């Protein structure tokens, strides 16, 4: 699962994801409450989206719905638009010491600083070498920058153009359009604040 690794475009300095999960057969049992504790920390510290692939995200099922649906073994994503909120969240998760694995995605220089500030030792890293193959099949770049926020590929170009038109015609605000973009991304990894900034480029 590489779903937050291949994001493209500018404004990535406003884009972070903290993922938390247990390991099946090791610490999965009883993990639901531990993940909800981490979810609560993230929401308190200004997460702009949250979700779990099996349960949905806060814009599709609501925060209470997400908590109800989560099970032992869930994969929790918390999405942020501000580095300081990531640092606060990482510090509190560290203090919790509940044994869940935690991964932070973002610009590598920024996430390195986040780890230092939170007193965390970086352990394992993953990097993207980009898109290879028949790249002529890809959609236009400004669409790609929004669409790559859902690693499962569920944000469509058609939806983006439709939302941009609705913003242009005054039927919707940019902020509302950002949230509509985030809804299909079931795991909550899509950043609606960044999506709104990127939709602005279509106006």
């Amino acid at each position, binding site marked *: 699962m590489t779903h937050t690794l291949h994001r493209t475009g500018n404004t990535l300095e406003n884009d972070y994801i903290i993922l938390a999960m247990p390991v099946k057969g*090791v610490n999965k049992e009883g993990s639901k409450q531990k993940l909800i504790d981490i979810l609560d920390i993230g929401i308190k510290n200004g997460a702009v989206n949250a979700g779990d692939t099996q349960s949905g995200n806060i814009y599709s099922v609501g925060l209470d719905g997400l908590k109800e649906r989560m099970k032992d073994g869930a994969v929790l994503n918390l999405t942020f638009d501000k580095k300081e909120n990531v640092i606060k969240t990482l510090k509190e998760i560290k203090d919790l010491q509940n044994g869940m*694995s935690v991964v932070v995605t973002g610009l590598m220089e920024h996430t390195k600083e986040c780890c230092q500030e939170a007193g965390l030792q970086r352990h394992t890293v993953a990097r993207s*070498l980009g898109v*290879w193959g028949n790249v002529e099949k890809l959609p236009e770049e400004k669409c*790609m920058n929004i669409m790559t926020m859902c690693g499962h590929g569920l944000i469509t170009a058609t939806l983006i153009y439709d939302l941009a038109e609705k913003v242009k015609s005054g039927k919707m605000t940019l902020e509302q359009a950002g949230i509509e973009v985030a809804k299909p991304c079931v795991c909550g990894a899509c950043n609606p604040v960044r999506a709104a900034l990127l939709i602005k480029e279509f106006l």
Partner: protein
Amino acid sequence: MRIREESCVGCGKCAKFCPMKAIKIEDHKAKVDPLKCVECYNCIREGCPVNALAKEELSWPRTLAESLSCPTGVDEKSGVSGRGTAEMKTNEVTGRIGHQKVGICLEMGRPFTGTTFIDVEKACMALAKHGAYFEPLNPVTYVMKDTTTGEIQEDVRPLFVLSAIVEALIDADKLEEVLKSCQKLSKEVDTVFSVGVSSLLKEDGTAYFDEAIEKMGLSMYAGGKTNVGLGRPLYDFDKER
């Protein structure tokens, strides 16, 4: 996925959410192209206003398309949800990617093009010839006829999916030759693929993939993922040395 024509009012909402452009509106009714539909159910999740969308009873290998394309699905054989495994996300506990090793993920069909298993097989074979160890819990691995060659079962080859992750572990000193094979693969497939690498961080803060990537003059995206080592119990990586 099927459309109950008698209920459909042709509003086009489902088409807007279809990542494979498999749904068209003709004569005020939605029509789904079964060759393009990958069973991701994005259209169903986003809610048809007249409840005209329904899942079909699927049989193998169409069930594999569903488990790879629908993020909420769980693969019936491996029991794994989604397209791959936890790879580096839980590495501090599992010890999956050890010293002198690089995890490599070729995500076929991503972004937004989809892929057949004919192209997935080409990727598997490109890695297999370098002695790649394919992740046993990944759904792509268990549809291989032979993990030493990367060949895929005949009944699966024509299958079209939203994306499929070829996930393997290689020796760090073989990364350069593996990436050269991926460059060759790039010219042989009819789809796109996203390339990801992962590694433990060494004491000096560098990763086991840095040297080969720099030597080849390849560029990495500025963003990336960092496992911050909080999972417990910790795996003892030094016992491998």
